[in-house]
């Protein structure tokens, strides 16, 4: 009897090693240094927190995460992706913050049929005509936040809006999303140099143009500077300012402080969203890192949890790529944003909320969820996806 059992055990072990991987290798490329490094660090911290919650495993298998810094340079991102796919033979790619970097690195992953889970940027072409069976965006489509802001400003009845964004394709995409829902007139549209630091010139222009309200999309450090200078010029007294959630993430609020108070912005997630996963995430993040999490961290957390769920669903047999894709599509995990569902283009169908910056009871500047702008909102590109 013992012999029989041993045989069975051996056979099972052989089968297991033939069919299932013994560990899950994740290639995590992100911007960890330079001006954009704050965002990559947030995503990484969120991702690592999720791994801590799963006991260092993904779907029950030990996780090996190779973390690389792309220095916010597209050619570096491309080389790192090549290296991770060809040399380290990772099972999943994730981590990239910026659209131009993803564009450079994505062929290395998708071309070699390696799943890429985007924890941040969601380019509209990958949601539409170029949708790909190996690409999943656990975050949002690039113009989701600005669609929501546009809808909100339209609903509030603004008629003459000034728009300011950086002069690069991503900036124009975001403004196009805004224009899809805001139908009024424009007091002016300014496209600034990417990475511009001083906005005195543009602020003077806005004052002279006398708009009803201002919509700005200036990601990262650009937005921080714009907000500070906007506040110093006392513009807030005359012109209501609306932005995307990217300009009002928790790290920005902590760094800028007072000037952000009262600002309205749209995002798919917030600290105060009322679900069990989010409460645990926010509390443990603060305990581990000594600061409140932001959107980017929440997306990093969700990316790890999505991989974890999919690997568990296929019982570690990640070689069966069709099954693994089905499992990723099913997204059997508890997202910190609440209910989570992928559209057929592998982009989320989700709510977008209106948030306002307030002071919490500890005197910190935080976003408070004021209203739901869109419920179960799909992106505008899914029709073009032939998947």
């Amino acid at each position, binding site marked *: 009897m013992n012999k029989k059992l041993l045989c069975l055990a051996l056979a099972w072990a052989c089968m297991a090693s033939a069919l299932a991987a013994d560990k899950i290798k994740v290639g995590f490329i992100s911007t960890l240094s330079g001006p954009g490094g704050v965002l990559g660090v947030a995503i990484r911290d969120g991702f690592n927190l999720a791994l801590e919650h799963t006991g260092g495993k993904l779907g029950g298998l030990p996780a090996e995460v190779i973390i690389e810094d792309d220095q916010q340079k597209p050619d570096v991102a*491309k080389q790192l992706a*090549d290296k991770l796919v*060809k*040399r380290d033979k990772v099972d999943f790619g994730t981590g990239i913050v910026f*659209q131009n970097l993803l564009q*450079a690195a994505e*062929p290395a992953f998708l071309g070699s049929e390696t799943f890429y889970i985007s924890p941040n940027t969601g380019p509209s072409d990958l949601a539409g005509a170029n949708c790909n069976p190996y690409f999943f965006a656990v975050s949002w489509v690039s113009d989701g936040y600005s669609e929501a802001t546009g809808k909100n400003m339209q609903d509030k009845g603004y008629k003459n809006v000034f728009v300011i964004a950086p002069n*690069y*394709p991503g900036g124009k995409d975001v403004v196009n999303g805004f224009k899809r829902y805001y139908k009024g007139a424009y007091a002016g549209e300014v*496209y600034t140099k990417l990475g511009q630091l001083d906005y005195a010139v543009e602020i003077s222009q806005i004052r002279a143009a006398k708009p009803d309200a201002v919509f700005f999309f200036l990601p990262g450090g650009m937005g921080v500077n714009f907000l500070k200078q906007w506040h110093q010029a006392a513009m807030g007294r005359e012109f209501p300012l609306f932005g995307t959630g990217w300009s009002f993430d928790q790290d920005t609020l902590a760094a800028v402080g007072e000037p952000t108070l009262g600002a309205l912005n749209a995002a798919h997630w917030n600290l105060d969203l009322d679900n069990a996963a989010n409460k645990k995430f926010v509390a443990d993040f603060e305990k581990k890192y000594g600061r409140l999490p932001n959107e980017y961290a929440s997306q990093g957390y969700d990316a790890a949890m999505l991989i974890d769920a999919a690997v568990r669903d296929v019982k570690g047999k990640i070689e069966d790529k069709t099954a693994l894709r089905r499992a990723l599509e099913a997204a059997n995990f508890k997202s910190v944003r609440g209910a989570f569902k992928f559209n057929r283009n592998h982009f989320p169908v989700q709510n977008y909320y209106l948030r306002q910056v307030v002071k919490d009871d500890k005197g910190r500047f935080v976003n408070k969820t004021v209203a739901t702008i869109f419920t179960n909102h799909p992106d505008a590109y899914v029709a073009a996806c032939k998947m």
Partner: protein
Amino acid sequence: MAGWRRHAWLLVALAAALALPKIAAIAGQDFYVSFASRVLIWALLASSLNLLVGMGGMVSLGHAAFFGAGAYVVAILSVEAPGGSSALLVWPLAVAVNALLAFLIGAICLRTRGVYFIMITLAFAQMFFYIFTSLTPYGGDDGLSLARRLTLPGLDMAGDATFYYVVLAIFAACLFALGRLKASRFGRVLAGIKDNEARMESLGYATFRFKLVAYTVAGALAGLAGALMANQNGFVSPNMMSWDQSGIALVMVILGGLGSLWGGFAGATAFLVLEEVLSGFSAHWQIVLGLVLLGVVFYAPLGIAGLFARKPR
């Protein structure tokens, strides 16, 4: 160095270069084949800059402008004329476009000397950078992805090993041509201008023309390197023209050996290998890189080529 020994070294180097993809395949590390292509492309860029700086004494801090422009010739053609994907057509075009650009820009820059020359070349590179950053039809700051590599009749360019051999052949040919150029009358006049321009002028040489030709050739070769890089990466972006790329090319030249024929190659290899090795160790590897560069300036001012030259004959 005795002639036969030099040839022996060359043969060994060539044999190693030819065998590299096989070795990588046996070791299961195909990644290093594309790494080697990258080294060779940077070596071509650094060698072209060495023609300017090392041979002609024209310190340019804007050489990446041509590197990027060469890459964009490939990328823009792939958008505008998706059918015309033969490398035999596109690469010469990249060279021609960049020769023309370098000729025009050189004609303006070479009116100045010394530091002013450094800064005016930088200014042109910055202009290229900002123009391509805001050139939305061609991707702007996002850059452009290429659907596939260009084709050469009879070769499968998609394979990393094949592409490596093509790059190797082009680099070898360019290095050979640069060597001939250096030994020619043109090269000697250029060296004379570097030493003492006024003297060459008083000897009756039209120094401006010699410098302009050198600038044009260097720009054209940098454009070729850019075109190869576009194919290597399958991607171009304005970042290729940013001033730190120009700085890195200059660092490679100095690291390898100013004015030495193999200086560009040695510098590119040393720099990229150093970067690859160091970045594996610590997130703060750049401190070490900086210290190594400082050490080179103070203790090995002639670069790697200088280390070899000092060995007893």
